[in-house]
């Protein structure tokens, strides 16, 4: 079973991802994927490996290019071996990912890859301006928005998003990430975000936490 020696399997998967060794990864997946529970393999092996890669980037052990290539290859493998039905969670909040203003889409793409690998379904708004983001969030009734930025002015624009969401009565949770938030630890609070992810692999954990917060809010409203 996956859980018994999962640390070793995570390590093997991690090493093969960083080596961009698609053959070893394919062999690994075919060898260990439980026929009846593919999502369990993803949760216990793939997501922890991507989390470890994200943390190793943050501490300078590996590079952003390795993080990006490994997450892209993980996504390819999962797409090839699992059906979408297996991977989509039955219950999840309505999610969207976006790159606000900036044309640099790497961060957003990495977040999307990690979420998809972890079985989340979401809207991908690509590069988007604030006005359109608000319209699409309203139209799609988005409950959690994950926003990636590269430039400081784009990060500061999130304050306006928060204010306009509040004025419209939306309770949507905002998760932010990107370079300005790494260089200024207090910036995410300043712009009114609900959480910050320092690396893309934080996304599934933060989405779970925000979903829980939304559920608690609803419970409070009912009481």
């Amino acid at each position: 079973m996956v859980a018994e020696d999962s640390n070793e399997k995570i390590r093997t998967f991690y090493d093969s991802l960083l080596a961009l060794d698609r053959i070893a990864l394919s062999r690994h997946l075919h060898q260990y994927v439980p026929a009846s529970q593919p999502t369990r393999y993803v949760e216990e092996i793939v997501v922890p490996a991507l989390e470890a890669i994200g943390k190793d980037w943050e501490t300078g052990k590996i590079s952003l290019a390795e993080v990006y290539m490994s997450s892209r290859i993980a996504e390819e493998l999962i797409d090839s071996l699992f059906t979408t039905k297996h991977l989509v969670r039955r219950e999840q909040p309505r999610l969207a990912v976006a790159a606000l203003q900036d044309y640099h889409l790497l961060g957003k793409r990495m977040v999307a890859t990690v979420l998809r690998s972890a079985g989340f379904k979401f809207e991908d708004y690509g590069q988007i301006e604030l006005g359109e983001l608000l319209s699409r969030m309203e139209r799609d009734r988005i409950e959690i928005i994950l926003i990636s930025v590269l430039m400081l002015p784009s990060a500061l624009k999130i304050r306006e998003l928060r204010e306009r969401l509040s004025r419209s009565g939306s309770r949507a949770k905002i998760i932010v990430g990107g370079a300005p938030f790494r260089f200024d630890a207090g910036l995410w609070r300043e712009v009114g975000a609900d959480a910050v992810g320092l690396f893309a692999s934080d996304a599934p954990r933060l989405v779970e936490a925000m979903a829980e917060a939304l559920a608690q809010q609803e419970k409070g409203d009912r009481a």
Partner: protein
Amino acid sequence: MNSFERVMTTLDHREADRVPFFLLLTMHGARELGLSIREYFSSPDNVVEGQLRLRRKYRHDCYYGFWYAPLEVEAFGGDVIFLEDGPPNSGTPPVRHIEDIGRLTPPNIAQNRKLQHVLTAIARIREKSGNDAPILGVVMSPFSLPIMQLGFNIYIELLFEHPDLFDRLIAVNQEFCVNWANAQLEAGATAICYFDPVSSPTIVPREKYLKTGFQIAKNMLGSIHGACAIHLASGRTVPIIDDIVRSGAKVLGVSCDDDLRSVKRACEGRITILGNLNGIEMRRWKPTETEAKVKEAISIAGPGGGFILADNHGEIPWQVPDDVLMTISEAVHRFGRYPLAGTL
């Protein structure tokens, strides 16, 4: 000692009269002139006046010939998006498909109006300043420019999976980079700052860098007819400092993610450190905090020269207010006097 002499002394790894400091200001010139950022960069006269006023105001030790990051990609046909409150940003990448790399040619500097504006500004600053401070020209490295030419993710895929197209793109970029750097030196720039964030171990592994970014930098710095700084624009430097020294750079722009003590040990007597105040955080520093950050950096990296205080990214954000910049200047003038022991 004027700024020029002060900087040359520190580059020689000797102590000048005080630690030199570069406020790497671009957009702030627009604020001085009461112009929008777009208007400011529409004419070389504005940039000349902006740079002269900024140096008079803050008493720092250079003129900055840098306009905005997508200048070169604009010359390759890319879009530039002007913001009211931030640096002009690159828009949709000009190379839509990697197959288009085969048809890419270097821009003609003589016929490009915006590049000519930059050269005019450098020449006029040189004329008006009387060579009292170094004028920094700027190029984007051939290895880092593709982030804006293709988009970050496509470029990383190209780097790892399409070596032939990568080589072709780099060849075009190298031809342009050398010509652009030498044109700025001929116009009057004292030295060139070679921005190369992709070479940082933050972005690519060192093994990849040694086969790519390092070889390209060595080639470029050998062909540029003047002294060069290599700046990794907030990327970590420590694991590749020896390599950067070998590439021929005289100055290294270091990140606030780097431990300045480790940087000083690795650079001492070999390459001058430029950095490493956190430009993003600087926006909300209080005066005591600003003073403490300046004192800390000077006390670690200042002894023996080989240090220029600056921000860590190579461009101070628009949101950094005047009083923070003024406090940095006052702190350097007060605590940066050599010998340092008595002032810190």
